[in-house]
């Protein structure tokens, strides 16, 4: 396996699956979080229908991230999940309520408000829990041998609460700009009004976390200020795209704010990856320490290289089938 570094390829595939998940489930979780603030029940119907045909596929990227970790970096899987035990449970509970709300809400009459809350609450919970995971990743994990050795609530600190809030704000912005793209009339107006506030919140949290991170993780400080200087390209790009979101909103562009928000997310994400590279279980294990057997990585890689392009093709096709504005009264229910 000297010709090419399988573990490196796998790290890139997993990184790709995670950013796909963040961008795609991010906007539909965001739509869920905006649910309580929607102008009326018709607007909620439209909001839900705008993501109903695609949410299931979006969430599948999360499962791919999990299964791919198990296949390529089992050590990450077997340390991260026990470390985040309670957080994972909360995230899953959130995803369950949210997922079934898609079907149940349209069947409900008197209990519809309950499913509105299940959809919104589940989205809040899942987004927050995922943000906490990001924070705990910056914090690092206590290990002993090849197993997690910390306590049940090590992941819950003021810093991770802040990253949790940060991801919630980010997803909400994604959801809001998605709605600008997919809706029209008063619903779109409402989303236009909301987006600048969410953008402001994202930037504020972004600034707080940036200042806070060096004190949580000295190695990150080192990396940003001493070792690799051109890492600064990522925050600069993020700010550039944030500006694009803002100017897109001001000029009433319908598609640009959503695209720019995604780009903003991607820049931040790659900046974060670079900060930690090549550690996958900070502060002790690199991606090469955590890798599975080369035969297993290769066996799975062959399938991935063949199937992932096909998945991307038919996923793109389904988005194309459901292109255009969602109007009041659409759906199969």
């Amino acid at each position: 396996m000297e010709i090419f570094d399988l573990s490196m390829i796998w790290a890139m595939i997993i990184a790709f699956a995670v950013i796909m998940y963040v961008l795609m489930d991010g906007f539909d979780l965001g739509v869920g979080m905006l649910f309580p603030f929607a102008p009326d029940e018709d607007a909620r119907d439209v909001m839900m229908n705008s993501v109903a045909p695609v949410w299931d596929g979006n969430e599948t990227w999360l499962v791919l991230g999990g299964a791919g970790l198990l296949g390529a970096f089992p050590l990450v899987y077997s340390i991260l999940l026990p470390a985040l035990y309670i957080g994972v449970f909360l995230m899953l509970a959130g995803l369950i309520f949210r997922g079934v709300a898609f079907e149940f809400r349209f069947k409900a009459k008197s209990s519809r408000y309950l499913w509105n809350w299940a959809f919104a609450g589940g989205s809040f919970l899942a987004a927050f829990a995922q943000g906490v995971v990001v924070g705990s990743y910056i914090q690092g994990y206590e290990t002993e041998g090849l197993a997690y050795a910390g306590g049940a609530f090590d992941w819950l600190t003021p810093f991770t609460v802040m990253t949790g809030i940060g991801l919630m704000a980010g997803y909400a912005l994604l959801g809001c700009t998605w709605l600008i793209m997919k809706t029209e009339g008063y619903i779109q107006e409402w989303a236009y009004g909301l987006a600048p506030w969410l953008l402001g919140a994202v930037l504020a949290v972004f600034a707080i976390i940036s200042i806070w991170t060096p004190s949580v993780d000295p190695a990150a400080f080192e990396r940003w200020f001493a070792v690799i200087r051109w890492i600064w390209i990522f925050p600069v790009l993020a700010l550039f795209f944030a500006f694009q979101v803002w100017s897109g909103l001001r000029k009433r562009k319908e598609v640009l704010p959503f695209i720019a928000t995604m780009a903003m997310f991607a820049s931040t994400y790659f900046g974060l990856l670079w900060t930690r590279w090549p550690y996958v279980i900070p502060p002790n294990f690199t991606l090469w320490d955590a890798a599975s057997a080369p035969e297993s990585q290769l066996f799975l890689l062959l399938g991935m290289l063949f199937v992932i392009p096909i998945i991307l093709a038919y996923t793109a096709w389904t988005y194309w089938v459901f292109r255009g504005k969602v109007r009041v009264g659409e759906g199969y229910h």
Partner: protein
Amino acid sequence: MELDPLLLSRIQFAFVVSFHAIFPVFTIGLASFIAFLEALSFKTGNPVWERLSKFWVQVFAVVFAMGVVSGIVMSFQFGTNWSNYSYAAANFLGPMLSYEVITAFFLEAAFLGVLLFGRNRVPKGVHLFAACMVALGTFISAFWILAANSWMHTPAGVELRDGVFFVTSWTEAIFNPSFPYRFAHMAVASFLTGAFVVSGVSAWYLLRGREIEVNRKALSMCLWLILILAPTQAVIGDFHGINTLEHQPTKVAAMEGNWETASGVPLLLFAWPDQESQSNRFEIAIPKLASLILTHDLNGEVPGLNEVAAEEQPPVAIVFWGFRVMVGLGLLMIATAFTGLLLRHKQRYWQTPWFLQGLRLMSVTPFIAVLAGWIVTESGRAPWLVYGLMTHAQGVTPSLTGGMALFTLLGYILVYAMIFSAGLYYLMRVLQDGLEVPERVTELDDDVHRPARPFSGSDVSFEQKGS
């Protein structure tokens, strides 16, 4: 009281997996049924098939959503509660689960959106294609997950080095000795489940005189299917049993309640296996029959539980009774199938109320049979997680405390209880609405509040359209 994280994790996994299993076992069969209806509709242009498909798609959507969300829990459970096992088996397990995601889950998810929401957005042929892809996805999913599960029962194609499994042959590991039997047994069980649910619901409509024409067609299709599949399942089960006897003799001994290795072993109809005294109480038995079934020889030797030490025995009573529940219900299904055939000859079975009532009641039996079957095979593996190579105790997460395991166990029970009762309630509503008034969809869209079946008096006119 000391909380045992191992026991609580086992209970939790059993709970989550059982709860999850009832959804795919239904959706695998139903997805194929829907694809078949869509194909008939595409080929004949007869609106009956499209109406049936539209109706069952609604049921499918609710059940599938519950299956998806409970399935996501499963995929994380390996890591949270069984991290040592995940780490040790990752070289094989990881690729299996990943292949399931990329070849099945994405397929199902993407094309389900088109199946549910795309009827008026894509050409008819493409919609049919989407239905077929969803059905195919359910099978591919079952393929990978059963390969992974079967490997835990009959591990092959691997070697254990320093506590970690390394794959030496992918074909041997995937097509491990028990895989073909399990896969066939599960696939047929899924079709039977779909067929019994559809026939039970159709029978219920016929009893109430609703949509006679359409439901009669659905019922007839299902009864033919059951007639072929129910006896076939018994044959597959027999082969599976012989395979288990070869590879997991202790499990078969528990299924038979057989404590001592002997020849000419009787078949126990009733017994109370007592693990403490290592014997049965209150036996009612048919002489030599167990030997005949298992070895196809009246005096064949059947291994007993005493071949292994008492602490390596599975929970005998659970395995013994689970097996009897499964087989009993299977026999009941075969009886139902032949009753249907007799009635088809002598008179019109859709006018035989007792038979229709019976079918209605039978619609829950496949679920119970499937759960009982899984309990037999999974409990029968105890105390092994990977048979003969790794025990449950070796596989559990080391940092897990009893309190954490209890918290999440109660959490899942609470969440699932809420979801399940809501799901059942809404399924009942879908069923009560039935197939009447295809225009209901547009009616609903104009007004968020659902109308109370505005055209419920118009069955007759739809009948004419449908025939």
